[in-house]
């Protein structure tokens, strides 16, 4: 079939309509996604992959990466190990001084609360008669705080992994029980376990009222049962659909894993009967909400009369009738979490996240083995991720920079990396007492990109493949959000959120003779990317520089150009308005912001 679709030559038209050639999945390296891309320095590639791009002056910067060793390999290993071992406080939460300082803003009120406090304040008392509706404060803080962390975090890999697991164990943020407990879900379930033990993480999700509600287990009862949670545990959370053998086979017909392989003697995958047996085991597992004899505390609750006490078999693990239910469900979740298929599924998803849509099989197999070997280890996921990032399987491994450009930034990544790169000063937060109307404006604009945090309703999480994000809606609304942020002021004096003028004057030059379109374009390309292609000429002479420079020089009539090597505002008569002015005919300050837009809208910037 591919050949049939392929035979249309190499013209631009053919590429536009060529169904087989255009898929990111089959596009190798640079040439695949943008023919104009320049290979960045190794450090920039790594920082773009492991986090949201370099943050000048932080431990997540090109300078810091470069300080970690004598070769790219040594620096990569040191940097990955540093990122995999973030500073923790006494409660096991990651310490990030810059982020923590911003999140101390009084508009954030739910982050320090325990699960029990959240339940009391937002579930039990979330919607008091006559009182304010506060029930969704945790969710509202959660969808904003994720931007603050991504803008400023020095632990980029922790943020990427939090995003990974939020999507892996996807729940809808404003769901009935997710909204009031979100701060605990994010902190205690996702982040605490993000580099920990998978079985422990699975247990934490199983004990969450948000999950039990979202996937309907809170009403799963015998003699019939509700299979929703059981199916998604198997299909999404653990083994994955890659290990689903379909509805036709019975359990007894499933081949067993051969001797000598990980999981020898267990069934190779699961069938519908495994889902139904697990669903029976899950009958009665709910949470305290004040009904059916439970306490309204949100804690796990077992409703004995709803439980199917019969014998069950899941993935070859047999539990006789009347097994104590805690033992029974633990035995099944143990088997499922430790099955080598789960390791393969998690390893594949991690490799797709960090390496490419179609990662080398050897990397996946190796990481799956590490996962299997460490099922009891408290740092199982850290070891698995380390294997994905550092295992050398030759070309196509993470360390191979030719991977650069095989991924397109999703809207969240595009917006965050752009605003990081211009040193935006913006603590996105709830708009308490009209204290941050720009936070609402920002979220309203970003929402239209289709990538609002925690807003994916089905349980499979946002797509992680590039193709999905290459529609015009995603691009235009990510860009529109960035443009808005570069133009926006805050407070009574409307201080710009993005200090473009200050950065230009302080970091580049306050001498108007330096403010030429050529030099301004070179400065901002270097500032946003954190690197330049040439140590002497910077970006000068590149196609991208020419195009960005032309934006700066192009007069409003789009017909004539300001001289590219003349300082803006440097005279003589007719050229006295500088880049800080914003009046007819040149509107230089607006144009400067528009030029920075062009830098971060470029294909070079949209690639990872």
């Amino acid at each position, binding site marked *: 079939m591919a050949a049939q679709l392929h035979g249309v030559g190499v013209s631009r038209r053919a590429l536009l309509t060529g169904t087989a050639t*255009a898929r990111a999945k089959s596009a190798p390296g640079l040439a695949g996604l943008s023919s104009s891309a320049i290979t960045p320095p190794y450090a920039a590639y790594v920082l773009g992959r492991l986090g949201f791009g370099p943050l000048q002056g932080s431990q997540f910067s090109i300078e810091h990466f470069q300080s970690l060793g004598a070769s790219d390999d040594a620096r990569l290993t040191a940097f990955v190990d540093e990122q995999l071992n973030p500073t923790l406080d006494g409660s096991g939460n990651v310490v990030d001084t810059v982020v923590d300082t911003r999140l101390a803003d009084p508009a954030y009120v739910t982050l320090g609360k325990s699960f029990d406090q959240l339940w009391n304040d937002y579930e039990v008392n979330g919607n008091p008669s006559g009182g304010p509706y506060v029930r969704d404060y945790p969710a509202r803080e959660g969808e904003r705080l994720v931007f603050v962390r991504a803008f400023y975090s020095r632990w980029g890999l922790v943020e990427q992994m939090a995003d990974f697991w939020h999507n892996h164990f996807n729940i809808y943020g404003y769901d009935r029980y997710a909204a009031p407990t979100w701060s605990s879900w994010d902190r205690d379930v996702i982040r605490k376990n993000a580099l920990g033990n998978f079985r422990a993480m699975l247990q934490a999700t199983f004990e969450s009222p948000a999950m039990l509600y979202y996937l309907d287990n809170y009403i799963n009862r015998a003699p019939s049962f509700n299979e929703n949670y059981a199916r998604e545990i198997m299909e999404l959370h653990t083994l994955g659909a890659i290990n689903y053998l379909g509805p036709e086979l019975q359990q007894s017909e499933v081949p067993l894993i051969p001797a000598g392989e990980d999981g020898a003697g267990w069934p190779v995958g699961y069938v519908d009967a495994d889902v139904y047996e697990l669903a029976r085991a899950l009958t009665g597992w709910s949470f305290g909400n004040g009904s059916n004899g439970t306490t309204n505390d949100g804690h796990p609750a077992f409703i004995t009369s709803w439980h199917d006490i019969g014998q069950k078999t899941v993935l070859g693990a047999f539990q006789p009738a009347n097994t104590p239910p805690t033992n029974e469900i633990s035995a099944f979740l143990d088997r499922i979490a430790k099955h080598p298929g789960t390791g393969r599924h998690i390893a594949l998803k991690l490799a797709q996240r960090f390496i490419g849509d179609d990662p080398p099989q050897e990397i996946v197999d190796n990481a799956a083995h590490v996962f299997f070997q460490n099922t009891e280890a408290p740092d199982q996921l850290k070891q698995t991720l380390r294997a994905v990032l550092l295992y050398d399987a030759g070309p196509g491994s993470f360390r191979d920079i030719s991977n650069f450009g095989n991924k397109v930034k999703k809207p969240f990544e595009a917006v965050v990396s752009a605003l990081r790169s211009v040193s935006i000063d913006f603590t996105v937060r709830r708009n308490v007492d009209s204290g941050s109307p720009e936070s609402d404006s920002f979220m309203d604009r970003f929402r239209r990109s289709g990538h609002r945090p925690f807003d994916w309703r089905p349980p499979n999480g946002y797509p992680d493949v590039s193709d999905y994000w290459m529609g015009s809606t995603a691009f235009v609304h990510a860009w529109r959000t960035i443009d808005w942020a570069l133009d926006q002021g805050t407070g009574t004096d409307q201080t710009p959120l993005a200090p473009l003028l200050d950065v230009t004057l302080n970091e580049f030059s306050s001498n108007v003779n330096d403010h030429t379109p050529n030099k301004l374009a070179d400065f901002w390309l270097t500032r946003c990317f954190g690197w330049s292609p040439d140590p002497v000429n910077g970006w000068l002479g590149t196609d991208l520089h020419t195009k960005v420079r032309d934006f700066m020089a192009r007069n409003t009539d789009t017909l004539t150009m300001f001289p590219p090597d003349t300082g803006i505002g440097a005279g003589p008569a007719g050229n006295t308005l500088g880049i800080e002015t914003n009046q007819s005919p040149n509107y230089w300050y607006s144009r400067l912001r528009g030029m920075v837009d*062009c830098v971060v809208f470029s294909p070079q910037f949209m*690639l990872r």
Partner: protein
Amino acid sequence: MGNLTRRAFLRNSTLCLTALGGLQLGFNTRLARADWQGNRFLVFVFLRGGMDGLNLVMPISGPDREPYEIKRPTINIPTTGDTAALPLSGDFGLHFAATGLHDLYLQQKLAVVHGIGFPLAQISRSHFDAQDYVDLGTPGELHTASGWLARHLESTGQVPDGAQIPALAAGSAPPDSLLGRRDTMTLDDPSSFHPNANNSIRVDNQPIYKLSTMVTLNQMYAGSGALDLAGTGAATTVELVDSLDVADYTPSPGANYPTSGVASSLASQARLIANIAKRGLGLQVATLDYGGWDTHENQGAGTQPNINANQYAARVDGLSQVLTALYNDLAGSGMADRMVVAVQSEFGRRVRENDNRGTDHGSGNPMLVLGGRVQGGRLFGTFGGLQDGDLFQNEDVATTTDTRRVLSEIVQRHLGNDDIATVFPGYDYSVGPLGVMPGDPIFANGFD
């Protein structure tokens, strides 16, 4: 700028890469078939989440009525009262909330095909695998590099070479049915659809640097990679939305798109499809996604007429209102014959309701086909029956008609593409059409 209007300024600009009339997303390598004059298009509506088709089209009499009521004690749709099923043909009725669709059935514009799905070996009760099978059009194969609608666009000879918008994904992202097609317009809403969000300096009521930004975007994305093409597509879409004044649209009288409720987004997207379809821009396929059908619990009591207390009925009501408005919108402009709307889900649900007054994942399901040329007012295919021996795995409505059979018929008889082997590789269409579409094309000549 002086008093130069923005439009004049676009025309005069030497830097603008494409003159206004030349803006287009579509690029085609084949010539249109000489006899093709139809300007026909397909709207593919995907009900994601597993729509419970047995409560959309259910037996209201005959031997399957009693097992329907027994197997669905609380959610069955009654035959009398406020929530009585709306009679179709024979023993079947339509959900009480689908009044608009019922009218279209009676007007013979809507057909129902029973028991669609994929062959037994390719049935999956996984939402995500099953959705991929539908989108890619290759059941059992998840790694196909293109979607079925993309392959139709690739293989059809029926997209005019000057088509500006051959494919429209109405929503925030293109579905995988269009995977691999880089000239799809993906558009959620034409308002504020440009990257210059908050520029207070305006010329001709547009942000001052909007045009210049477009020029630079086109220059930066002039390469040949997939991202370059996608970026060019985004820039072109911005310019088309603007130059065509897409935001300025008035539906035909009688096209009442709902503005609130669960289908309000679907409504604005359907409205956008009608808007684009009527402009003669070469539209060939458009897609709509409508989720929220995964009704494992409290699906809605069969006797609950209040759609605010009946989640399934609310969704059906929304779907019915939107499709009715879309049909009336096109019909009001004399273009109903150009459009076929095909509506399906990734699978149906279990025949027996669960203990939570909901339904779990099943298989066989109806497909709705709507349009001016559709042989409507009829039921097609075979309903497998609801008695114990009739059900697939003693659980589901049996799959009796391959989904691809219906879609092939639409591709061939409505869109004029005979190359079914490319659209659905591996599918044997020697079984031929069911007759949902008329056999002899009646060209809509002169409707422009």
